[in-house]
Structures are given as structure tokens and as C-alpha cells.
């Protein structure tokens, strides 16, 4: 690979640069930036439903109260946004995908790929195995507080080992599929998998 050109007079000073928890090309932030493609939907907890489906066949449906009655999990994890910020030790509470599958009477996902559907039509795709073994949850609390609508409240997916666009805000439905269907950003030039440690930002990375 060619040696990158030196930008004369540039001296880095990001303290995250030497932190082994920060993936390549990322920098640390202490605030929590917001990125969404459109307006923030207004939460309506009475009408809120979370569903899972095997293709088009329903597997389970939970109201807000039913969802909150499921066993809750807490995760403290680092998150990495494709726009190059990383935030360490973020604290989340919600229901793991393992628990949701169990509540639907399943021992494993019925398909190897998952398409995640959200309020407002946003979608993202994740291999089903990336959702298992405590790696992912539907999160409804951040730092001990109900999740703000602008951060995805009432509930968002949390898949922290992938770039954060995969942790889709305002999640409403997990659809298990036999083949991989690219989601919204994945259709718009972003990587189909999105591993921050392999810097899989864009299609072809």
C-alpha cells in the first residue's frame, strides 16, 4: 500500500488514539451525537407493538407492558458510529434477543439472516447469529433512564459489536429470512456487515 501523504502541520491530539478499545479510524466522544435519516417519530406506548416473524409468518407480538414484563438484561458496552465517533462504557437495559426468542418458544432463530424493521420504514440487516448469546438486545433504557425518542426511544435494537447504524432506532419488528436482504444504509453505499474492527464502513471495505 502506498504511504499516505503527510498533511503539513497536522499534529494529532486525540486521547482516544492510544486507547486499545477504540477501533481504527475512530475517535472518542463524551457526548452522544444523534444521526437519523428523517424526523423522530413520536412515541405512542399504547399503540407500540414489537413483533417477530419467520418470513411472513408471525412468531410473537408484545405490547409495551408485555415487553417490559419480560426478563430484563443490562449491558455496558462501547459503541462505534461509522461517522468516526466512539463512546465507551455506555449502559443499556432491555430484553436480549435470546430472551425474545425463548418467549416466542424458539430455541434458535428460524432463519440465518435478520431484517430489522423500524417505525418510519427504516430497515437494517444483521446475520441472525450476531443477535445471539447476549450480544444484542432491544433496549429501552440508557444510563438508567427511559431512552429518549431522538436516541431511538421507546426502544431500539442494540448490536454494539457492529457499527452503530445497525443498532436501529425505533425498532418494531425482527424478520428472520433465509437470504440476506440489505437494509436502508446498506442499500445506500454502506457495508453489508459493518465490523468496526475491520473498518467495514462502506460497500467493498
Amino acid at each position: 500500500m502506498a504511504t499516505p501523504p503527510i498533511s503539513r502541520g497536522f499534529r494529532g491530539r486525540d486521547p482516544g488514539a492510544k486507547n486499545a478499545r477504540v477501533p481504527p479510524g475512530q475517535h472518542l466522544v463524551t457526548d452522544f451525537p444523534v444521526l437519523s435519516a428523517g424526523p423522530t417519530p413520536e412515541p405512542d406506548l399504547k399503540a407500540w407493538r414489537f413483533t417477530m416473524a419467520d418470513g411472513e409468518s408471525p412468531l410473537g407480538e408484545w405490547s409495551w407492558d408485555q415487553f417490559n414484563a419480560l426478563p430484563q438484561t443490562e449491558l455496558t458496552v462501547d459503541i462505534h458510529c461509522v461517522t468516526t465517533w466512539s463512546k465507551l462504557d455506555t449502559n443499556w437495559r432491555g430484553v436480549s434477543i435470546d430472551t425474545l426468542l425463548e418467549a416466542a418458544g424458539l430455541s434458535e432463530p428460524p432463519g440465518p439472516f435478520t431484517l430489522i424493521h423500524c417505525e418510519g420504514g427504516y430497515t437494517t440487516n444483521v446475520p441472525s447469529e450476531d443477535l445471539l448469546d447476549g450480544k444484542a438486545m432491544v433496549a429501552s433504557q440508557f444510563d438508567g433512564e427511559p431512552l429518549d425518542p431522538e436516541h431511538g426511544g421507546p426502544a431500539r435494537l442494540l448490536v454494539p459489536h457492529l457499527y452503530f447504524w445497525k443498532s436501529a432506532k425505533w425498532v418494531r419488528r425482527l424478520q428472520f429470512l433465509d437470504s440476506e436482504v440489505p437494509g436502508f444504509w446498506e442499500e445506500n453505499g454502506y457495508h453489508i456487515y459493518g465490523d468496526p474492527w475491520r473498518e467495514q464502513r462502506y460497500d467493498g471495505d
Partner: protein
Amino acid sequence: MTATEPSVVAPKRLQWMTASIREVIEETPRVRTLVLDVPDWPGHRAGQHVDVRLTAEDGYQAQRSYSIASAPDAPHVALTVEMLVDGEVSSYLAGEARAGDKIELRGPIGGYFVWTASLGGPLFLVAGGSGVVPLMAMLRHRAAAKSDVPATLLYSSRSFDDIIYRAELERLAGQGVNLVLTLTRTQPAGWGGFKRRIDRAMLESAGFAPAAKPRIFVCGPTLLVESAASALRDLGHAPQLIKTERFGPTGK
């Protein structure tokens, strides 16, 4: 390739390209435009962004995303960068960098927050601060493509001196762009524009009726984008026609 032969084309990785700074334009006290020579530039669409990478002499690297300010039709790629407090990349690009310096680019990126003349209009652009940059690329493209779609830019700045692209916006206003400015902190004597943050009443009076189905692009700090996008939805604009891009701290 023939029509009967399906082919799987592996996606081509976006390569880092070396760009030389050709010219530096002081836009405001905190904002500069870098006009670049990028020999292998593949072209872009208005609204797209690039990743910029800087390499220090000791090999340290940092990268950030910046919107492209230039129209696809322009001879040179231009980025407009606002200096952020403690911004390690923005303080270099908006402060230290000068003509002849080299940076790296990867892109263009993003296929969503994009407008091309063929998409038509009306076009309703809502900007706060340096959020005007990708919207300026759209207005420049509209002018270069000689598009006659009705276009409105509602643009919020802190003060008169913070208005980015002021002279060019005034020229565009003479070419069919409805330019609506609001200054939120200080206004010069005799200021005839708005003097408050963008709100629902301002969006309603400056913009198009929902029945006209304008394509709406909102870009700026998070709080502005959140409130403007929600107000636009409440006014009856279809959420799928409201495209947003946000930056900056949340104030938390």
C-alpha cells in the same frame, strides 16, 4: 456481459485519494472553504459527503466526515469546514491548512441525502450554521443545471457575520431562489429578516404547502434538525419527503 449471463460484481472498495489544497476561502471568522485538486475524483451528487484523513509526520492519523460544498458540475471539489472547539481535524482544516498542503479523501459517500435536478421539486432546504454546506451544493447544482424548480432556503445563523456564502446566496436569490434568513443572536441595524430560532410558524410561512409535495432537506445541529423535522411533519409534510442530516453535540 450478455443479458443471459448473470454476473456477480464484487463491490469496489472506495480508495483513499490524495487531494491538494488549491485555494483557501475565508467564509466567516470560523469557517473556511478548501478548494481541492483531486486527480482521480469520480464525480458526486449534491448532498453527498467524503471522509477526510490527515496523517501527521509521526504517522498518527485522524479521519472525519465532511459534506461536499461544490456542485457536481463544478471544476473542483470544495469542502467547507467550521472550526469546532477541540476539533482536532476541523482546527487543522479551518485553521492551519493552506494552499499546497495535502490531505486524503475517500468518497463520495451517501445515496440518501441527495438531490439531482432530474428529481424535480419544489425544493425546500432548511439549514442551521454550517449545515448549509450540503444544501449549497444542491443550490449550486440547481443553478449549474439551469433547473427551474422552485427552491427555498431557510437558513439560521447566529449573526450576520456568521452567514456562510452570503454574497453567493444573494446572487442566487436574484436567480429564483427564495432566500429566507434568520439571525438568532445578534442582528445588524435595520435587519428585516427573522430574529429567532427556526420554528413551526417560520417553516410554514417560508416553505411550500404540503400539497405541493416539496422535497425537504434539513441539515444542522441536532436540536435544530429535531425540532424542524418534527414541525414539518406536524405541518403535514410526509415523513419520507423529509430528509435530515445532523451534526454536533446534543447538549447533554
